Protein backbone atom coordinates (compact mmCIF):
# COMPACT_ATOMS: atom_id res chain seq x y z
CA UNK A 1 0.00 0.00 0.00
CA UNK A 2 1.23 3.41 -0.95
CA UNK A 3 -0.09 4.93 2.30
CA UNK A 4 2.41 2.84 4.27
CA UNK A 5 5.34 4.37 2.41
CA UNK A 6 6.96 7.16 4.44
CA UNK A 7 7.91 8.93 1.24
CA UNK A 8 4.23 9.37 0.34
CA UNK A 9 3.74 11.47 3.47
CA UNK A 10 6.90 13.43 2.75
CA UNK A 11 5.45 14.39 -0.64
CA UNK A 12 2.24 15.60 0.99
CA UNK A 13 4.22 17.59 3.56
CA UNK A 14 6.26 19.29 0.85
CA UNK A 15 3.11 20.17 -1.08
CA UNK A 16 1.54 21.58 2.07
CA UNK A 17 4.67 23.65 2.61
CA UNK A 18 4.44 24.97 -0.96
CA UNK A 19 0.90 26.13 -0.29
CA UNK A 20 1.39 27.43 3.23
CA UNK A 21 4.55 29.49 2.72
CA UNK A 22 3.35 32.09 0.16
CA UNK A 23 -0.21 32.12 1.52
CA UNK A 24 0.84 32.79 5.09
CA UNK A 25 3.06 35.74 4.16
CA UNK A 26 0.84 36.73 1.20
CA UNK A 27 4.09 36.94 -0.72
CA UNK A 28 3.48 37.03 -4.47
CA UNK A 29 7.13 36.96 -5.53
CA UNK A 30 7.73 33.87 -3.40
CA UNK A 31 4.72 32.30 -5.11
CA UNK A 32 6.20 33.05 -8.52
CA UNK A 33 9.50 31.45 -7.50
CA UNK A 34 7.74 28.38 -6.17
CA UNK A 35 5.62 28.04 -9.29
CA UNK A 36 8.74 27.77 -11.45
CA UNK A 37 10.17 25.17 -9.08
CA UNK A 38 6.90 23.24 -9.17
CA UNK A 39 6.92 23.23 -12.98
CA UNK A 40 10.55 22.06 -12.98
CA UNK A 41 9.66 19.22 -10.60
CA UNK A 42 6.66 18.23 -12.75
CA UNK A 43 8.75 18.11 -15.92
CA UNK A 44 11.68 16.28 -14.32
CA UNK A 45 9.46 13.72 -12.53
CA UNK A 46 7.56 12.78 -15.64
CA UNK A 47 10.69 12.69 -17.76
CA UNK A 48 12.06 10.31 -15.15
CA UNK A 49 9.33 7.82 -16.07
CA UNK A 50 10.90 7.57 -19.53
CA UNK A 51 14.61 8.05 -18.92
CA UNK A 52 15.01 6.74 -15.40
CA UNK A 53 12.47 3.92 -15.36
CA UNK A 54 12.34 2.72 -18.93
CA UNK A 55 15.77 3.78 -20.20
CA UNK A 56 14.45 5.67 -23.22
CA UNK A 57 15.76 9.21 -23.69
CA UNK A 58 13.08 11.69 -24.66
CA UNK A 59 14.64 14.90 -25.98
CA UNK A 60 11.29 16.39 -26.87
CA UNK A 61 9.44 16.01 -23.60
CA UNK A 62 8.45 19.69 -23.66
CA UNK A 63 6.14 18.93 -26.57
CA UNK A 64 3.55 17.62 -24.10
CA UNK A 65 3.75 20.72 -21.95
CA UNK A 66 3.38 23.02 -24.96
CA UNK A 67 0.57 21.06 -26.57
CA UNK A 68 -1.23 20.93 -23.24
CA UNK A 69 -0.87 24.70 -23.01
CA UNK A 70 -2.32 25.12 -26.48
CA UNK A 71 -5.28 22.81 -25.96
CA UNK A 72 -5.97 24.33 -22.53
CA UNK A 73 -5.80 27.92 -23.71
CA UNK A 74 -7.90 27.11 -26.75
CA UNK A 75 -10.62 25.54 -24.57
CA UNK A 76 -10.66 28.28 -21.92
CA UNK A 77 -10.47 31.22 -24.32
CA UNK A 78 -12.20 30.20 -27.52
CA UNK A 79 -14.68 27.70 -26.08
CA UNK A 80 -15.08 29.42 -22.72
CA UNK A 81 -14.67 26.20 -20.71
CA UNK A 82 -13.90 26.07 -17.04
CA UNK A 83 -10.17 25.96 -16.17
CA UNK A 84 -10.02 22.62 -14.35
CA UNK A 85 -12.05 20.85 -16.99
CA UNK A 86 -9.94 22.35 -19.81
CA UNK A 87 -6.72 21.31 -18.11
CA UNK A 88 -7.97 17.75 -17.64
CA UNK A 89 -9.19 17.54 -21.21
CA UNK A 90 -5.85 18.93 -22.39
CA UNK A 91 -4.13 16.17 -20.43
CA UNK A 92 -6.33 13.46 -21.92
CA UNK A 93 -6.01 14.76 -25.48
CA UNK A 94 -2.24 15.08 -25.27
CA UNK A 95 -1.88 11.66 -23.63
CA UNK A 96 -3.89 10.16 -26.42
CA UNK A 97 -1.69 11.88 -29.04
CA UNK A 98 1.35 10.60 -27.17
CA UNK A 99 -0.05 7.08 -27.23
CA UNK A 100 -0.44 7.29 -31.00
CA UNK A 101 3.03 8.81 -31.46
CA UNK A 102 4.33 6.14 -29.12
CA UNK A 103 2.91 3.25 -31.09
CA UNK A 104 4.69 4.64 -34.15
CA UNK A 105 8.08 5.58 -32.77
CA UNK A 106 8.45 3.17 -29.85
CA UNK A 107 9.17 0.42 -32.33
CA UNK A 108 12.53 2.14 -32.49
CA UNK A 109 15.09 1.10 -29.93
CA UNK A 110 17.39 3.20 -27.79
CA UNK A 111 19.15 5.88 -29.74
CA UNK A 112 16.83 5.76 -32.73
CA UNK A 113 13.95 6.54 -30.41
CA UNK A 114 15.87 9.47 -28.92
CA UNK A 115 16.41 10.90 -32.41
CA UNK A 116 12.75 10.46 -33.28
CA UNK A 117 11.77 12.50 -30.21
CA UNK A 118 13.85 15.41 -31.48
CA UNK A 119 11.97 15.04 -34.75
CA UNK A 120 8.59 14.99 -32.98
CA UNK A 121 9.40 18.26 -31.26
CA UNK A 122 10.36 19.97 -34.51
CA UNK A 123 7.46 18.46 -36.42
CA UNK A 124 4.85 19.45 -33.84
CA UNK A 125 6.30 22.94 -33.66
CA UNK A 126 6.16 23.20 -37.45
CA UNK A 127 2.58 21.98 -37.40
CA UNK A 128 1.43 24.41 -34.70
CA UNK A 129 3.22 27.31 -36.40
CA UNK A 130 1.07 26.65 -39.47
CA UNK A 131 -2.18 25.83 -37.71
CA UNK A 132 -4.76 28.57 -38.23
CA UNK A 133 -7.18 27.99 -35.30
CA UNK A 134 -4.22 28.36 -32.91
CA UNK A 135 -3.03 31.62 -34.40
CA UNK A 136 -0.06 30.24 -36.37
CA UNK A 137 3.25 31.78 -35.24
CA UNK A 138 1.67 34.69 -33.34
CA UNK A 139 -0.07 32.35 -30.92
CA UNK A 140 -3.09 33.01 -28.73
CA UNK A 141 -3.98 35.42 -25.96
CA UNK A 142 -6.23 34.80 -23.01
CA UNK A 143 -9.29 37.04 -22.86
CA UNK A 144 -9.77 38.75 -19.54
CA UNK A 145 -13.27 37.25 -19.43
CA UNK A 146 -11.75 33.86 -18.64
CA UNK A 147 -10.75 35.02 -15.17
CA UNK A 148 -14.29 35.94 -14.18
CA UNK A 149 -15.61 32.50 -13.21
CA UNK A 150 -12.65 32.18 -10.83
CA UNK A 151 -13.44 35.46 -9.08
CA UNK A 152 -11.18 37.91 -10.91
CA UNK A 153 -7.54 37.88 -11.94
CA UNK A 154 -6.08 38.01 -8.43
CA UNK A 155 -8.03 35.03 -7.24
CA UNK A 156 -7.53 33.15 -10.48
CA UNK A 157 -3.75 33.32 -10.16
CA UNK A 158 -3.82 31.90 -6.64
CA UNK A 159 -6.16 29.11 -7.71
CA UNK A 160 -3.89 28.28 -10.62
CA UNK A 161 -0.99 28.14 -8.21
CA UNK A 162 -2.76 25.64 -5.93
CA UNK A 163 -3.64 23.50 -8.91
CA UNK A 164 -0.03 23.49 -10.12
CA UNK A 165 1.17 22.46 -6.66
CA UNK A 166 -1.41 19.67 -6.71
CA UNK A 167 -0.12 18.51 -10.09
CA UNK A 168 3.42 18.57 -8.68
CA UNK A 169 2.43 16.37 -5.73
CA UNK A 170 0.51 14.09 -8.07
CA UNK A 171 3.54 13.76 -10.37
CA UNK A 172 5.64 12.48 -7.50
CA UNK A 173 2.88 10.19 -6.24
CA UNK A 174 2.42 8.73 -9.72
CA UNK A 175 6.18 8.12 -9.95
CA UNK A 176 6.17 6.48 -6.53
CA UNK A 177 3.17 4.29 -7.33
CA UNK A 178 4.60 3.12 -10.62
CA UNK A 179 7.95 2.42 -8.99
CA UNK A 180 6.29 0.08 -6.49
CA UNK A 181 4.02 -1.70 -8.96
CA UNK A 182 4.35 -4.72 -11.19
CA UNK A 183 4.06 -2.37 -14.14
CA UNK A 184 7.09 -0.47 -12.82
CA UNK A 185 9.08 -3.69 -12.50
CA UNK A 186 8.26 -4.43 -16.12
CA UNK A 187 9.63 -1.02 -17.10
CA UNK A 188 12.82 -1.60 -15.11
CA UNK A 189 13.21 -4.92 -16.89
CA UNK A 190 12.90 -3.15 -20.25
CA UNK A 191 15.53 -0.65 -19.11
CA UNK A 192 17.99 -3.36 -18.13
CA UNK A 193 17.52 -5.64 -21.12
CA UNK A 194 14.58 -5.28 -23.43
CA UNK A 195 15.02 -8.60 -25.21
CA UNK A 196 15.22 -10.53 -21.96
CA UNK A 197 12.16 -8.68 -20.67
CA UNK A 198 10.17 -9.66 -23.75
CA UNK A 199 11.22 -13.28 -23.40
CA UNK A 200 10.07 -13.24 -19.78
CA UNK A 201 6.61 -12.09 -20.77
CA UNK A 202 6.73 -8.30 -20.55
CA UNK A 203 4.72 -6.86 -23.42
CA UNK A 204 7.34 -4.22 -24.16
CA UNK A 205 5.47 -2.44 -26.96
CA UNK A 206 2.36 -1.80 -24.87
CA UNK A 207 4.36 -1.02 -21.71
CA UNK A 208 6.42 1.57 -23.54
CA UNK A 209 3.42 3.17 -25.24
CA UNK A 210 1.58 3.36 -21.90
CA UNK A 211 4.45 4.90 -19.99
CA UNK A 212 5.06 7.33 -22.84
CA UNK A 213 1.46 8.52 -22.68
CA UNK A 214 1.44 8.56 -18.86
CA UNK A 215 4.55 10.74 -18.93
CA UNK A 216 2.60 13.11 -21.19
CA UNK A 217 -0.49 13.53 -19.02
CA UNK A 218 0.63 15.65 -16.06
CA UNK A 219 3.02 17.87 -18.04
CA UNK A 220 0.13 18.64 -20.38
CA UNK A 221 -2.13 19.52 -17.44
CA UNK A 222 0.65 21.68 -16.00
CA UNK A 223 1.12 23.35 -19.39
CA UNK A 224 -2.58 24.17 -19.60
CA UNK A 225 -2.47 25.72 -16.11
CA UNK A 226 0.80 27.56 -16.62
CA UNK A 227 -0.16 29.15 -19.94
CA UNK A 228 -3.54 30.09 -18.49
CA UNK A 229 -1.64 31.86 -15.73
CA UNK A 230 0.72 33.56 -18.23
CA UNK A 231 -2.23 34.60 -20.38
CA UNK A 232 -0.57 33.96 -23.74
CA UNK A 233 1.12 31.28 -25.78
CA UNK A 234 3.08 31.10 -29.02
CA UNK A 235 5.05 28.28 -30.63
CA UNK A 236 8.47 29.51 -29.55
CA UNK A 237 7.63 29.69 -25.83
CA UNK A 238 5.39 26.63 -25.83
CA UNK A 239 7.98 24.36 -27.43
CA UNK A 240 11.11 25.87 -25.97
CA UNK A 241 13.77 23.36 -26.95
CA UNK A 242 16.10 24.61 -24.22
CA UNK A 243 13.56 23.84 -21.50
CA UNK A 244 13.26 20.34 -22.87
CA UNK A 245 17.01 19.94 -22.62
CA UNK A 246 17.19 21.51 -19.19
CA UNK A 247 14.68 18.92 -18.03
CA UNK A 248 17.28 16.28 -18.82
CA UNK A 249 19.94 18.22 -16.92
CA UNK A 250 17.63 18.43 -13.89
CA UNK A 251 16.97 14.72 -13.95
CA UNK A 252 20.60 13.69 -14.34
CA UNK A 253 21.71 16.17 -11.69
CA UNK A 254 19.24 14.86 -9.11
CA UNK A 255 19.59 11.22 -10.03
CA UNK A 256 17.64 9.40 -12.72
CA UNK A 257 15.42 6.54 -11.66
CA UNK A 258 14.67 7.99 -8.26
CA UNK A 259 11.52 9.93 -7.39
CA UNK A 260 13.21 12.22 -4.90
CA UNK A 261 16.19 12.55 -7.24
CA UNK A 262 14.07 13.94 -10.05
CA UNK A 263 12.30 16.35 -7.72
CA UNK A 264 15.48 17.47 -6.00
CA UNK A 265 17.26 17.97 -9.33
CA UNK A 266 14.33 19.98 -10.66
CA UNK A 267 14.21 22.24 -7.62
CA UNK A 268 17.98 22.76 -7.37
CA UNK A 269 18.46 23.36 -11.06
CA UNK A 270 15.61 25.85 -11.16
CA UNK A 271 17.17 27.77 -8.23
CA UNK A 272 20.53 27.72 -9.98
CA UNK A 273 19.02 28.87 -13.23
CA UNK A 274 17.16 31.80 -11.70
CA UNK A 275 20.35 32.80 -9.90
CA UNK A 276 22.37 32.62 -13.13
CA UNK A 277 19.76 34.46 -15.18
CA UNK A 278 19.63 37.38 -12.76
CA UNK A 279 23.37 37.63 -12.26
CA UNK A 280 24.80 40.30 -14.59
CA UNK A 281 28.03 38.43 -15.36
CA UNK A 282 26.72 34.92 -15.78
CA UNK A 283 23.33 35.50 -17.39
CA UNK A 284 24.67 34.93 -20.90
CA UNK A 285 26.35 31.73 -19.89
CA UNK A 286 23.62 29.81 -18.11
CA UNK A 287 23.41 27.30 -20.93
CA UNK A 288 27.17 26.77 -20.83
CA UNK A 289 27.07 26.12 -17.10
CA UNK A 290 24.10 23.77 -17.48
CA UNK A 291 25.99 21.88 -20.19
CA UNK A 292 29.15 21.65 -18.10
CA UNK A 293 27.10 20.41 -15.15
CA UNK A 294 25.49 17.73 -17.28
CA UNK A 295 28.85 16.63 -18.65
CA UNK A 296 30.35 16.39 -15.16
CA UNK A 297 27.41 14.36 -13.89
CA UNK A 298 27.47 11.99 -16.85
CA UNK A 299 31.22 11.43 -16.66
CA UNK A 300 31.79 11.31 -12.93
CA UNK A 301 28.51 10.68 -11.11
CA UNK A 302 26.00 8.90 -13.34
CA UNK A 303 23.78 8.35 -10.30
CA UNK A 304 23.42 12.09 -9.69
CA UNK A 305 23.08 13.67 -6.25
CA UNK A 306 20.85 10.93 -4.95
CA UNK A 307 23.22 8.20 -6.13
CA UNK A 308 25.93 9.88 -4.12
CA UNK A 309 23.65 10.09 -1.08
CA UNK A 310 22.72 6.40 -1.39
CA UNK A 311 26.40 5.49 -1.40
CA UNK A 312 26.98 7.60 1.67
CA UNK A 313 23.93 6.36 3.56
CA UNK A 314 22.62 3.09 2.12
CA UNK A 315 19.69 3.19 4.52
CA UNK A 316 18.35 6.39 2.96
CA UNK A 317 17.21 4.25 0.03
CA UNK A 318 14.36 2.90 2.16
CA UNK A 319 12.83 6.28 2.93
CA UNK A 320 13.87 8.52 0.03
CA UNK A 321 12.75 6.49 -2.94
Amino acid at each position, binding site marked *: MILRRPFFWIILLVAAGFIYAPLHSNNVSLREDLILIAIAIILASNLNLM*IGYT*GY*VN*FGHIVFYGLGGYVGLYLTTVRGWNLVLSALVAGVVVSFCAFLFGL*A*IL*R*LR*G*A*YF*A*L*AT*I*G*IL*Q*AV*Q*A*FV*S*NFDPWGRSTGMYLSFESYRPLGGARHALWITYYLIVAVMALSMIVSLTIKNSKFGLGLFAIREDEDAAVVLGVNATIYKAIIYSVSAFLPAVAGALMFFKNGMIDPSIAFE*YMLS*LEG*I*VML*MLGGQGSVIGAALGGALYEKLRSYLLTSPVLS*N*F*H*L*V*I*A*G*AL*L*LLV*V*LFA*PGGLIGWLYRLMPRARKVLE
Partner: protein
Amino acid sequence: MSGVLASMIDGVLVGAVYGLAAMGLSLIWGVMDVINLTHGAMIALGMFCMYLLFAATHINAYVLLLPTIGFGLVIGIVVYWMAVHWVVGRSMLMSLLSTFAVNMMVIGIGTAIWSTSPYNVNFVLPGITLGAYTFTGNHIAAAISAVVIALALQFFLYRTRTGKAIRAVADNRDAAELMGISSTAVLSIAFAIGIALACTSGALVSTLFPFTILSGAVYQLKSFVVTILAGLGKPFGALVAGVLLGLLEGVITPFIAVSWIPLIEFGLFVVVLVAFPQGIFGKRATA
Protein backbone atom coordinates in the same frame (compact mmCIF):
# COMPACT_ATOMS: atom_id res chain seq x y z
CA MET B 1 7.13 22.93 -65.36
CA SER B 2 10.63 24.19 -66.10
CA GLY B 3 10.34 26.07 -62.80
CA VAL B 4 10.06 22.75 -60.99
CA LEU B 5 13.01 21.40 -62.97
CA ALA B 6 15.13 24.38 -61.95
CA SER B 7 14.06 23.93 -58.36
CA MET B 8 15.02 20.25 -58.57
CA ILE B 9 18.47 21.03 -59.92
CA ASP B 10 18.95 23.56 -57.18
CA GLY B 11 17.78 20.94 -54.68
CA VAL B 12 20.35 18.47 -55.94
CA LEU B 13 23.13 21.04 -55.58
CA VAL B 14 22.14 21.85 -51.99
CA GLY B 15 21.56 18.15 -51.34
CA ALA B 16 25.23 17.42 -51.95
CA VAL B 17 25.99 19.69 -48.99
CA TYR B 18 23.43 17.85 -46.82
CA GLY B 19 25.13 14.66 -47.86
CA LEU B 20 28.52 15.95 -46.76
CA ALA B 21 27.11 16.92 -43.35
CA ALA B 22 25.53 13.49 -42.97
CA MET B 23 28.82 11.78 -43.87
CA GLY B 24 30.32 13.23 -40.71
CA LEU B 25 27.49 11.92 -38.57
CA SER B 26 27.48 8.55 -40.29
CA LEU B 27 31.23 8.07 -39.93
CA ILE B 28 31.22 8.67 -36.18
CA TRP B 29 28.10 6.59 -35.67
CA GLY B 30 29.44 3.70 -37.71
CA VAL B 31 32.94 3.64 -36.24
CA MET B 32 32.32 4.12 -32.54
CA ASP B 33 28.60 3.59 -32.13
CA VAL B 34 28.20 7.09 -30.74
CA ILE B 35 25.40 9.31 -31.94
CA ASN B 36 27.08 12.64 -32.09
CA LEU B 37 24.62 15.20 -30.81
CA THR B 38 27.25 17.95 -31.13
CA HIS B 39 26.71 17.64 -34.87
CA GLY B 40 24.37 20.62 -35.20
CA ALA B 41 26.58 22.80 -33.01
CA MET B 42 29.62 21.86 -35.09
CA ILE B 43 27.81 22.76 -38.30
CA ALA B 44 27.03 26.14 -36.74
CA LEU B 45 30.67 26.55 -35.66
CA GLY B 46 31.74 25.85 -39.24
CA MET B 47 29.40 28.59 -40.44
CA PHE B 48 30.88 31.12 -38.04
CA CYS B 49 34.43 29.95 -38.77
CA MET B 50 33.82 30.70 -42.44
CA TYR B 51 32.19 34.01 -41.55
CA LEU B 52 35.18 35.15 -39.46
CA LEU B 53 37.78 33.92 -41.95
CA PHE B 54 36.01 35.62 -44.81
CA ALA B 55 35.59 38.86 -42.88
CA ALA B 56 39.30 38.81 -42.09
CA THR B 57 40.68 37.89 -45.53
CA HIS B 58 38.04 38.58 -48.21
CA ILE B 59 39.54 35.94 -50.48
CA ASN B 60 37.58 33.27 -52.36
CA ALA B 61 35.33 31.59 -49.78
CA TYR B 62 35.92 28.14 -51.26
CA VAL B 63 39.66 28.44 -50.66
CA LEU B 64 38.81 29.11 -47.02
CA LEU B 65 37.39 25.60 -46.76
CA LEU B 66 40.92 24.33 -46.18
CA PRO B 67 41.52 26.22 -42.92
CA THR B 68 37.95 25.31 -41.91
CA ILE B 69 38.78 21.62 -42.27
CA GLY B 70 41.85 22.16 -40.09
CA PHE B 71 39.76 24.00 -37.52
CA GLY B 72 37.25 21.15 -37.50
CA LEU B 73 39.96 18.54 -36.94
CA VAL B 74 41.33 20.44 -33.93
CA ILE B 75 37.88 20.98 -32.39
CA GLY B 76 37.11 17.32 -33.04
CA ILE B 77 40.18 16.13 -31.11
CA VAL B 78 39.34 18.48 -28.22
CA VAL B 79 35.72 17.30 -28.02
CA TYR B 80 36.80 13.67 -28.29
CA TRP B 81 39.04 13.92 -25.24
CA MET B 82 36.61 16.12 -23.35
CA ALA B 83 33.42 14.14 -23.71
CA VAL B 84 33.56 11.14 -25.99
CA HIS B 85 36.55 9.02 -25.03
CA TRP B 86 35.13 8.22 -21.60
CA VAL B 87 31.75 7.05 -22.83
CA VAL B 88 32.71 4.94 -25.86
CA GLY B 89 31.43 1.45 -25.13
CA ARG B 90 29.23 2.56 -22.24
CA SER B 91 25.47 2.65 -22.64
CA MET B 92 24.03 4.68 -25.47
CA LEU B 93 22.32 6.97 -22.94
CA MET B 94 25.67 8.17 -21.64
CA SER B 95 27.15 9.05 -25.02
CA LEU B 96 23.94 10.75 -26.09
CA LEU B 97 23.97 12.87 -22.94
CA SER B 98 27.66 13.70 -22.95
CA THR B 99 27.76 14.84 -26.58
CA PHE B 100 24.54 16.63 -25.91
CA ALA B 101 26.16 18.47 -22.98
CA VAL B 102 28.94 19.68 -25.28
CA ASN B 103 26.27 20.80 -27.73
CA MET B 104 24.67 22.94 -25.01
CA MET B 105 28.02 24.47 -24.09
CA VAL B 106 28.93 25.34 -27.68
CA ILE B 107 25.49 26.81 -28.39
CA GLY B 108 25.62 28.70 -25.08
CA ILE B 109 29.02 30.24 -25.83
CA GLY B 110 27.98 30.96 -29.42
CA THR B 111 24.80 32.70 -28.29
CA ALA B 112 26.75 34.79 -25.81
CA ILE B 113 29.20 35.93 -28.51
CA TRP B 114 27.06 36.27 -31.62
CA SER B 115 23.53 36.38 -30.13
CA THR B 116 20.93 34.64 -32.29
CA SER B 117 20.73 37.29 -34.99
CA PRO B 118 21.36 36.26 -38.61
CA TYR B 119 24.73 36.58 -40.35
CA ASN B 120 25.77 35.95 -43.91
CA VAL B 121 28.96 35.50 -45.90
CA ASN B 122 28.89 38.16 -48.57
CA PHE B 123 30.67 36.27 -51.32
CA VAL B 124 29.05 35.81 -54.73
CA LEU B 125 30.34 33.78 -57.67
CA PRO B 126 28.87 34.51 -61.11
CA GLY B 127 26.06 32.11 -61.95
CA ILE B 128 25.10 30.17 -65.05
CA THR B 129 21.97 31.24 -66.90
CA LEU B 130 19.88 28.64 -68.72
CA GLY B 131 16.81 30.09 -70.37
CA ALA B 132 14.81 32.03 -67.81
CA TYR B 133 16.62 30.55 -64.80
CA THR B 134 19.95 31.39 -63.24
CA PHE B 135 21.81 28.90 -61.09
CA THR B 136 23.95 30.82 -58.68
CA GLY B 137 27.65 30.15 -58.81
CA ASN B 138 27.70 29.56 -55.06
CA HIS B 139 25.31 26.62 -55.29
CA ILE B 140 27.39 25.03 -58.03
CA ALA B 141 30.69 25.64 -56.26
CA ALA B 142 29.33 24.31 -52.97
CA ALA B 143 28.07 21.13 -54.61
CA ILE B 144 31.39 20.58 -56.40
CA SER B 145 33.32 21.16 -53.17
CA ALA B 146 31.09 18.70 -51.34
CA VAL B 147 31.60 16.01 -53.95
CA VAL B 148 35.37 16.57 -54.05
CA ILE B 149 35.63 16.30 -50.26
CA ALA B 150 33.43 13.20 -50.27
CA LEU B 151 35.65 11.55 -52.90
CA ALA B 152 38.74 12.50 -50.89
CA LEU B 153 37.23 10.85 -47.81
CA GLN B 154 36.36 7.74 -49.81
CA PHE B 155 39.97 7.58 -51.06
CA PHE B 156 41.26 8.07 -47.51
CA LEU B 157 39.06 5.32 -46.05
CA TYR B 158 39.81 2.72 -48.74
CA ARG B 159 43.34 3.48 -49.91
CA THR B 160 45.38 4.67 -46.92
CA ARG B 161 46.62 2.72 -43.91
CA THR B 162 44.91 5.02 -41.41
CA GLY B 163 41.66 4.84 -43.34
CA LYS B 164 41.82 1.06 -43.43
CA ALA B 165 42.50 1.05 -39.69
CA ILE B 166 39.37 3.13 -39.16
CA ARG B 167 37.31 0.64 -41.10
CA ALA B 168 38.89 -2.24 -39.23
CA VAL B 169 37.98 -0.70 -35.86
CA ALA B 170 34.46 -0.07 -37.10
CA ASP B 171 34.14 -3.72 -38.10
CA ASN B 172 35.55 -5.28 -34.97
CA ARG B 173 37.36 -3.27 -32.37
CA ASP B 174 38.84 -6.21 -30.46
CA ALA B 175 40.17 -7.92 -33.57
CA ALA B 176 41.67 -4.65 -34.75
CA GLU B 177 43.43 -4.24 -31.39
CA LEU B 178 44.89 -7.73 -31.77
CA MET B 179 46.29 -6.75 -35.17
CA GLY B 180 48.23 -3.96 -33.47
CA ILE B 181 45.93 -1.07 -34.27
CA SER B 182 45.69 1.45 -31.45
CA SER B 183 41.94 1.82 -31.31
CA THR B 184 42.07 4.95 -29.14
CA ALA B 185 44.13 6.79 -31.73
CA VAL B 186 41.89 5.56 -34.51
CA LEU B 187 38.71 6.57 -32.72
CA SER B 188 40.00 10.05 -32.02
CA ILE B 189 41.04 10.49 -35.67
CA ALA B 190 37.69 9.22 -36.92
CA PHE B 191 35.84 11.52 -34.55
CA ALA B 192 37.95 14.49 -35.63
CA ILE B 193 37.26 13.73 -39.29
CA GLY B 194 33.53 13.49 -38.56
CA ILE B 195 33.58 16.87 -36.86
CA ALA B 196 35.66 18.37 -39.66
CA LEU B 197 33.05 17.19 -42.17
CA ALA B 198 30.30 18.82 -40.10
CA CYS B 199 32.25 22.11 -39.90
CA THR B 200 33.00 22.04 -43.61
CA SER B 201 29.41 21.46 -44.57
CA GLY B 202 28.43 24.28 -42.24
CA ALA B 203 30.95 26.51 -43.99
CA LEU B 204 29.46 25.54 -47.36
CA VAL B 205 25.93 26.27 -46.13
CA SER B 206 27.09 29.67 -44.91
CA THR B 207 27.97 30.62 -48.49
CA LEU B 208 24.45 29.74 -49.62
CA PHE B 209 22.01 30.99 -46.99
CA PRO B 210 21.98 33.42 -44.04
CA PHE B 211 22.49 31.62 -40.74
CA THR B 212 22.33 32.01 -36.96
CA ILE B 213 24.08 30.10 -34.22
CA LEU B 214 20.95 27.95 -33.92
CA SER B 215 20.81 27.04 -37.62
CA GLY B 216 22.81 23.90 -36.99
CA ALA B 217 19.77 22.16 -35.51
CA VAL B 218 17.94 22.20 -38.84
CA TYR B 219 20.87 20.60 -40.65
CA GLN B 220 21.31 18.14 -37.80
CA LEU B 221 17.78 16.85 -38.40
CA LYS B 222 18.48 16.64 -42.13
CA SER B 223 21.71 14.76 -41.39
CA PHE B 224 19.84 12.22 -39.30
CA VAL B 225 17.28 11.71 -42.03
CA VAL B 226 20.04 11.26 -44.62
CA THR B 227 22.06 8.91 -42.40
CA ILE B 228 19.02 6.75 -41.77
CA LEU B 229 18.19 6.74 -45.49
CA ALA B 230 21.70 5.68 -46.38
CA GLY B 231 22.15 3.13 -43.63
CA LEU B 232 24.81 3.35 -40.96
CA GLY B 233 28.50 3.49 -41.62
CA LYS B 234 28.16 4.08 -45.34
CA PRO B 235 29.70 7.50 -45.84
CA PHE B 236 29.43 7.51 -49.60
CA GLY B 237 25.84 6.29 -49.45
CA ALA B 238 25.18 9.32 -47.26
CA LEU B 239 26.24 11.62 -50.10
CA VAL B 240 23.82 9.93 -52.49
CA ALA B 241 21.01 9.99 -49.91
CA GLY B 242 21.76 13.68 -49.28
CA VAL B 243 21.30 14.41 -52.96
CA LEU B 244 18.02 12.47 -52.86
CA LEU B 245 16.79 14.54 -49.92
CA GLY B 246 17.79 17.74 -51.71
CA LEU B 247 15.95 16.56 -54.81
CA LEU B 248 12.86 15.84 -52.74
CA GLU B 249 12.99 19.31 -51.20
CA GLY B 250 13.44 20.78 -54.67
CA VAL B 251 10.35 18.97 -55.90
CA ILE B 252 8.10 19.98 -53.02
CA THR B 253 9.20 23.57 -52.29
CA PRO B 254 7.42 25.12 -55.29
CA PHE B 255 4.13 23.71 -53.96
CA ILE B 256 4.06 24.19 -50.20
CA ALA B 257 5.26 26.66 -47.58
CA VAL B 258 8.84 26.19 -46.42
CA SER B 259 7.75 26.00 -42.77
CA TRP B 260 6.13 22.61 -43.42
CA ILE B 261 9.41 21.01 -44.46
CA PRO B 262 10.49 19.84 -40.96
CA LEU B 263 7.18 17.99 -40.67
CA ILE B 264 7.71 16.21 -43.98
CA GLU B 265 11.32 15.37 -43.23
CA PHE B 266 10.38 14.00 -39.85
CA GLY B 267 7.64 11.88 -41.39
CA LEU B 268 10.16 10.53 -43.85
CA PHE B 269 12.57 9.83 -41.01
CA VAL B 270 10.09 7.74 -39.05
CA VAL B 271 8.77 5.90 -42.09
CA VAL B 272 12.26 4.97 -43.22
CA LEU B 273 13.34 3.95 -39.72
CA VAL B 274 10.36 1.70 -39.27
CA ALA B 275 10.28 0.30 -42.79
CA PHE B 276 14.01 0.03 -43.59
CA PRO B 277 15.94 -0.28 -40.33
CA GLN B 278 19.13 -0.98 -42.28
CA GLY B 279 18.74 1.97 -44.63
CA ILE B 280 17.68 1.94 -48.23
CA PHE B 281 21.16 1.09 -49.45
CA GLY B 282 21.84 -1.27 -46.56
CA LYS B 283 21.64 -5.03 -46.60
CA ARG B 284 18.27 -6.28 -45.49
CA ALA B 285 19.26 -8.12 -42.36
CA THR B 286 16.79 -9.48 -39.87
CA ALA B 287 15.94 -6.55 -37.62
